[in-house]
């Protein structure tokens, strides 16, 4: 386990539940904010939040939210909002009736924030997938939940619709400040929304902690898989270069240049830098097409199964993660403490990974 030790945890979960072919045995504590529960399908993510919601009864366990013991409390008294993957809007009620089913807390603001004004008189059958998701979000929030549980709310949507919903979720996180448990198998959503990550595999927590710490830890390459491993860094847009059509962002440890215009100047943005898209060099490369060359210090070397090595790096105060081959490691003669250069191709930071 890596990550920050939690003082004053907001939610504490201990759950055991045995099924015929699978056992969920989970324990984690997390502070308020957005807790991402990440794992492959079948890792027990949905079972876990169903147990937190009270929809399934664990064999043993204890769930405490802000000092309130929820263990054994019936579903309708837990006061948790649940956004299901398939929205589950009531088909015989209009959008307005659906929204008010659990309460009318903060109605006007939520309708405005989620862009639901034009949908109120419609029935769910007449809504698009993205609209259904927004109504489901609004419905859960109007019940004034102590916490919001989201079960892959974007999984049923295509890329465009996802991009449409994500900003709403960010606004909820930043403006409504409702704590969330966000189940997903998409690392770009984790990187963009979450403060804390709990990684599940075969019904067990294999890693948990702050998102930046977990994702930049060399051990995460083996746990999350090559495709999903990669550090998350918080950067601020400082300039737009109209002529070259790039944006310049600054973070603790350097500058990074991204193609296109990524948000207004002064905006804080989370960037996910996939470990496999970071190239390492012992000396500063010259005449190179990549725009981002950062001086870094090697902090950890972790040899994985196969021929891969996860390399922990520090650029200023910011941890980064690279994944290279054993052959490269030998040739470069890398050791912990070495001063080297990390090269990040600007296009490696895909649009979905920018928050």
């Amino acid at each position, binding site marked *: 386990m890596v990550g920050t030790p939690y003082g004053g945890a907001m939610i504490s979960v201990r759950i055991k539940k045995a099924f015929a072919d699978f056992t969920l045995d989970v324990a984690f504590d997390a502070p308020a904010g957005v807790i991402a529960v990440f794992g492959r399908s079948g890792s027990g993510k949905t079972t876990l939040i169903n147990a937190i*919601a*009270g*929809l399934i009864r664990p064999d043993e366990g204890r769930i405490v939210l802000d000092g309130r013991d929820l263990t054994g409390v*019936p*579903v*309708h*008294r*837990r*006061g*948790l*909002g*649940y956004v*299901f993957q*398939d929205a*589950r809007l*009531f*088909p*015989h009620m209009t959008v307005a009736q659906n929204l008010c*089913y*659990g*309460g009318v807390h903060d109605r006007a603001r939520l309708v405005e924030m989620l862009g639901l004004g034009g949908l109120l008189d419609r*029935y769910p059958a007449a809504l698009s997938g993205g609209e259904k998701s927004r109504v489901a979000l609004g*419905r*859960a929030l109007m*019940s004034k939940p102590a916490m919001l*549980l989201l079960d892959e709310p974007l999984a049923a949507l295509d890329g465009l619709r996802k991009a449409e919903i994500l900003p709403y979720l960010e606004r909820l996180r930043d403006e409504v400040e409702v704590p969330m448990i966000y189940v997903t198998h998409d690392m770009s959503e984790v990187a963009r929304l979450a403060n804390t990550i709990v990684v599940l595999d075969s019904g067990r927590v294999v890693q948990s902690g702050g998102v930046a710490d977990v994702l930049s830890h060399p051990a995460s390459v083996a746990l999350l898989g090559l495709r999903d491993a990669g550090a998350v860094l918080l950067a601020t847009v400082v300039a737009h270069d109209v002529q070259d059509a790039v944006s310049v962002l600054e973070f603790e440890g350097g500058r990074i240049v991204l193609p296109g215009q990524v948000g207004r100047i002064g905006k804080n943005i989370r960037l996910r830098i996939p470990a496999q898209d970071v190239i390492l060099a012992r000396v500063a490369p010259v005449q190179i097409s990549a725009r981002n060359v950062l001086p870094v210090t090697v902090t950890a070397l972790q040899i994985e199964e196969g021929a891969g090595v996860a390399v922990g790096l520090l650029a200023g105060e910011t941890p980064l993660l690279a994944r290279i081959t054993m052959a490269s490691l030998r040739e470069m003669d890398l050791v912990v403490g070495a001063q080297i250069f990390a090269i990040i191709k600007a296009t490696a930071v895909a649009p979905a990974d920018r928050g």
Partner: protein
Amino acid sequence: MMWEAVFLSLRVSAVATIVALPLAIWVAHILARKVFRGHALLNGLVHLPLVLPPVVTGYLLLVVFGRSGVIGGLLFDWFGVTLAFRWTGAALAAGIMGFPLMVRAIRLGFEAVDAGLEDAARTLGASEARVFRTVTLPLIAPGVVAGAVLGFAKALGEFGATITFVAAIPGQTQTIPSAIYGLLQVPGQESAVVVLVVISVTLAMGALVASEWLARRMVAR
């Protein structure tokens, strides 16, 4: 006598349907949702009137609900209520004969409801009673309407169990089918028979059309 039979039939069938409906919803809910020992037994018991000869059902009603029957005796001793040879007995017979049809239609309705919607309602703070009233019941409404219409139509046509349990006393227990049967035993009553037959067909068709219309109205939403 003819119109007496028609109004009696309507009253008997209406009372039978209204009284049996809540019970049928409850039993259908148990059969559709609950897993327990004795599930097959309850299912068989509910369906028994469908497969038993109606005369046998009528005879069993007489044994159980007659003045000297187990339940009939208690009803008379405690409340002074008599069912045998009364219109209330005709309603009981009609209700029991229509009950399996009601339960089957409503059970299909329950099985078509996504239990996930009920879970969603619970997470929004709804108690079990509120979940049932605001989510389950509206969603099974087409099944309930279909069950009610089937039960009503069955009650209108019920003959065997009724005549065995409550006989065919004009103005008291003589419903349309037993009136038709009685008229057929006497020569020269063909015109009255034709009128009752036309009324029977009209009522049955009316019930079917009404249920179609109601069902379509609900689905349209």
